[in-house]
């Protein structure tokens, strides 16, 4: 188990290095920021001066060295737009996004687990079909549209919840609900079908033959096996979550990583985009690492591969 974790940890660190390099290269491929900062009255000399200021006149490899050194010391550069340190901008935006992402993730996991398992055990009943409908709706309706509808209903018409901002937990209710509804169907479907497979297996028959009560058959014998398949697709769910966060923050005008990166991209604000992408991809890598560990906890066969 310890060896397994160590191996996975090293792999994660390597992947992180890869991501860091890739981000550096990709951002530089997307165009010259100095050109973007020109105004109609600017001269050729201005362009050269700006490039100098930003360090863009140095050879790429030197730029890369400066970039790496900055990362190690926690210096992500300064925003082109307002000259504030990117690390500061991110540390302001990150908590909001984290609150939004983590609460929607937990909420959707709990709901998906309950509905997915119950739908599988009550296969082809009204309940199962209802859950299927819910899943289709969740996947068919774009999240920004659901967000706007929810604002119209609960903020404009009934005025129960605020439509924007991050001041109180109440402000998070609508965005979390919309985001939960957005990522729920995918997880729910995977859990349901994986549960159906497991419920069909011989060892579930054997559990019943032993006289295990049906509740335990499902929540002890079946569920733990049924979680293995959904875990492998956890990466996809996460990708959905991150895309969702960006859109939802925009719809509910919440300051967060989403709005930070959207603004950064619109203005070719290199350091900001770079910083946000780095944070997001490290988050994905860290979560993938945690998922792998969880995987080993659930499935003994994986744990024993590395001993």
């Amino acid at each position, binding site marked *: 188990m310890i060896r397994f974790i160590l191996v996975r940890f090293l792999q994660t660190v390597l992947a992180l290095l890869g991501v860091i390099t890739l981000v550096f290269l990709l951002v530089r491929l997307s165009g010259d920021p100095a050109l973007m900062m020109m105004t109609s009255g600017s001269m050729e000399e201005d362009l050269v001066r700006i490039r100098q200021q930003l360090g863009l006149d140095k050879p790429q490899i030197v730029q890369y060295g400066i970039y790496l050194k900055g990362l190690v010391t926690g210096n992500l550069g300064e925003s082109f737009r307002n000259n504030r340190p990117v690390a500061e901008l991110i540390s302001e935006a990150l908590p909001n996004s984290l609150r939004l992402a983590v609460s929607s993730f937990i909420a959707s996991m709990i709901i998906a687990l309950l509905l997915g398992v119950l739908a599988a055990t009550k296969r082809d009943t009204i309940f199962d079909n209802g859950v299927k409908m819910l899943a289709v709706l969740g996947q068919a309706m774009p999240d920004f549209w659901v967000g706007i509808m929810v604002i119209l209903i609960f903020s404009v018409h009934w005025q129960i919840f605020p439509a924007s901002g991050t001041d109180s937990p109440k402000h998070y209710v609508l965005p979390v609900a919309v985001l939960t509804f957005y990522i729920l169907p995918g997880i729910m479907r995977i859990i349901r079908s994986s549960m159906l497979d497991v419920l069909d297996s011989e*060892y579930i028959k*054997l559990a019943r*033959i*032993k006289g295990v009560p049906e509740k335990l058959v499902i929540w002890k014998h079946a569920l733990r*096996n049924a979680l293995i398949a959904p875990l492998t697709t956890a990466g996809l769910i996460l990708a959905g979550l991150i895309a969702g966060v960006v859109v939802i923050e925009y719809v509910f005008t919440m300051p967060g990583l989403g709005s930070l990166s959207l603004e950064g991209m619109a203005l070719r604000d290199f350091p900001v985009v770079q910083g946000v992408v780095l944070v997001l991809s490290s988050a994905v890598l860290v979560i993938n690492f945690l998922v792998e560990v969880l995987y080993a906890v659930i*499935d*003994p*066969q994986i744990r024993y591969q590395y001993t």
Partner: protein
Amino acid sequence: MSKIVLEVEGLRTSFFTRKGIVKAVDGVSFFVREKETLGIVGESGCGKTVTGMSIMRLLPEPGGKIVGGRITLNGTSLLELSKREMRNIRGCMVSMILQDPMTSLNPVYTIGDQIAESVRMHQNLADEKMITNEVVSSLRLLQIPSPETLLKNYPFQLSGGMRQRVVGAIAMCCKPSLLIADEPTTALDATIQAQYIALFKDIQAKTDVAIIFITHDFGVIADMCHRVAVMYAGKIVESASTSEIFKKPQHPYTRALINSVPRLDRKDDRLYSIEGQPPSLMHLPPGCRFCERCSDSLEICSKEEPPEKNIGNNHTVSCWRVQ
């Protein structure tokens, strides 16, 4: 004679599907005594597993339903029990071994946990140490080497033969009076199969357990069973003691099955197989179910079902040819 452990009378089990009603078991009667092994033999799809699952009252839902008959286990009428009462009997008074040892054990729990779960549920044992003792002694009963270390293993660490022994230990750990073994050796290779059968004879001698041995192989019957019931398309067409059935098989289907066992003493080593297909259980013919495949049929065979006749020595057969 030792006492009767299980008596099944006129059992009928059907599956209610969208396409129609499948009469998988259609009026089956048999009994098993203490220390006795009854073989149920027949081709694939004739209703052997459904018969076993009906006794366990574990038919696939929705759809599977016992529509008639009585099942009496140690004097208790199983079909009248509540779900909870039935659960207490399952795995305790009656247990079952399934066909495939590779998939019968839960991959994420240790062998010890899986046996202990049964012991904990069905026996009122005060502490963990007593439970572990029971688990170890059930592994010993199945002649599993070094049970104390095996306890901590996961199923994927064991061979197929060893897994099937563990499944046997789970079945035997609460000392059932009836064990239903549904083709427990089909997935194993020949030497391990022979070992497993010898093992069960030994277990029966030690525990007096009554066994229903389900198989489609008459060869296994000769090694293992005291009596045999031959099943065809949801019915028992012939039953007798093993020696009697090999000496004087009456039903043409029984004879065909016996002939299809590969034998070393026969000159031509061609494998005999029965031509044709059994009838659809959804649209059963009015007469004898074997009629279409029978080389010996009479006119009445396609019109009326043959009644069951006792020809002495507890040998019963349902065939118009037998007088």
